[in-house]
């Protein structure tokens, strides 16, 4: 069979992209269409889904308002706390750290992120549990301090779990910084503090925006940290979703919540890209 060069080229492209395109269609697009359809449906009497077209599920969203507000409050607050710890660390790594140790120190930051979040969060159950820190606090005269199962514990877990993800983009943007700008600024008589606020900080804002956006997005879907450190008292949308799908089996309502969650995530990404565009003239938001 004679085949033109163009046809052959197209065939090769289709073969290369085909499998991943199929994967994306079946396990990303199709599931998303499914929850969209479910979100306008009704709960079947025995649990699960029953076809309908109603916005009742969306109207009912306020019933889970606590989970929603917990997430919308603690996720950004957690991300900001993360930023406060991450920025000085990234600054040290990119600008102050001795060159010899820089790569090692950066690796040491990345490694915990790729180890099990479950195990790392679990460690804090000991530290914050009655036999951990509260036990030590009792020795110095502060009895009956409860740390586990409080919003504070959840925030601590968040900072602990997501610190590496916040440090990396900031480190990358600070590392790219042209040092000559700082020298020029010093030559022109600017104090180090002024140089920092007029040069270093603005130029690292894309990294900050990426870090805050990434951490906030991941936190919006967080389940493990509130589950393990919040003990059912401080729960997120993720916890509500698990409950709705696996316990009360109200799938249409859960789907409506999931659709809302994804919309919020898309909104945040759009805002972050706008910000990055505005500050750095690039829409590039580094993900990996």
């Amino acid at each position, binding site marked *: 069979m004679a085949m033109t060069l163009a046809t052959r080229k197209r065939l*090769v492209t289709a073969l290369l992209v085909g499998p991943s395109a199929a994967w994306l269609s079946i396990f990303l697009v199709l599931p998303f269409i*499914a*929850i969209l359809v479910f979100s306008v449906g009704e709960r079947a009497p025995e649990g699960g889904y029953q076809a309908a077209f109603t916005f009742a599920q969306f109207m009912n969203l306020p019933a889970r308002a606590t989970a929603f507000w917990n997430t919308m409050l603690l996720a950004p607050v957690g991300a900001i706390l993360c930023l406060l710890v991450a920025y000085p660390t990234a600054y040290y790594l990119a600008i102050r750290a001795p060159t010899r140790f820089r790569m090692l120190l950066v690796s040491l930051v990345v490694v915990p992120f790729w180890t*099990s979040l479950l195990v790392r969060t679990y460690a804090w159950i000991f530290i914050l549990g009655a036999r951990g820190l509260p036990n030590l606090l009792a020795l110095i005269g502060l009895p009956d301090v409860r740390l586990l199962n409080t919003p504070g514990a959840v925030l601590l877990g968040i900072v602990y779990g997501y610190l590496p993800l916040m440090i990396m983009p900031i480190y990358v943007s600070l590392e790219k910084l042209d040092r000559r700008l700082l020298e020029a600024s010093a030559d022109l008589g600017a104090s180090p503090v002024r140089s920092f606020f007029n040069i270093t900080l603005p130029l690292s804002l894309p990294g900050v925006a990426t870090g805050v956006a990434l951490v906030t997005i991941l936190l919006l879907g967080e389940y493990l940290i509130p589950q393990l450190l919040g003990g059912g008292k401080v729960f997120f949308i993720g916890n509500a979703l698990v409950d709705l799908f696996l316990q009360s089996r109200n799938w249409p309502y859960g789907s409506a919540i999931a659709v809302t969650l994804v919309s919020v995530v898309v909104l945040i990404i759009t805002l972050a890209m706008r910000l990055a565009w505005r500050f750095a003239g690039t829409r590039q938001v580094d993900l*990996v």
Partner: protein
Amino acid sequence: MRAFVTAVYLFLYAPIALVVLLSFNAGRNASDFTGFSVEWYGKALSNTFLIQALQNSLMVAFISAGLAAIYGTMAAMGLERLGKRGRMLFDGLLAAAIVVPGVVIGIATLVALVQLFALLNPIVTALWPSDNPPQFGFGYGSIIAAHGLFSMALVTMIVRARIATLGRDIVEASADLYATPFNTFRLVVLPQILPAILSGFLLAFTFSFDDFIIAFFVAGSKTTLPIYIFASIRRGVTPEINAIATLVLTASLLLILLSRFLMRDRPRPAPSE
């Protein structure tokens, strides 16, 4: 400033160190250290449920990361041949696969597959020539597929970043010297992107091995290691979990170090002739 950074590193590593330390505890209580012992490792390794969960996790991680490495690399190679609109659509879907929360991926896959199975299983039953037709259900396949989604997107992005750093010139030089497109790929492109593929594979493996929330929804009756650990924590903290946790941490640590070793920038050896 150095003191602050030192404190940050302590903060990052002290909890991990604590778990490792407590895993060698001789006492029955998980949080009071009474003496050194490896007893709990023996207990953990003779626990058949645990070993089964570990095997499941290793298998799922290996297959999903392997498929992701192959299809992700193919996609990274094919994307630059796509038209502008196709590429933008594909890019959007890849980004979505990475940023959509795991909990949403989990429930959406659950919901979609329940419907799909309900549609397909009667057809299979009708077409099957004898009794006991095979039926689709949740299990290894659904976990592999759901993990593979994120992993494939991850590998595609990593390999693509690597391809972008390769000059077109070596590919053109290879073609000018009459290499077939396949030989150009095998002898010129592949050796250069192999570290990126391996690194992507290892990161994907680690992701799948550590994932709890997606597997929690689509695992059906199967148990992966994170699901087992999560259930154990709910039953109560024992030194056995510390031993398992230490093993998991060690495994992840080795994989990530290997991955970073592969991805490091090394000076290319000068051509010998």
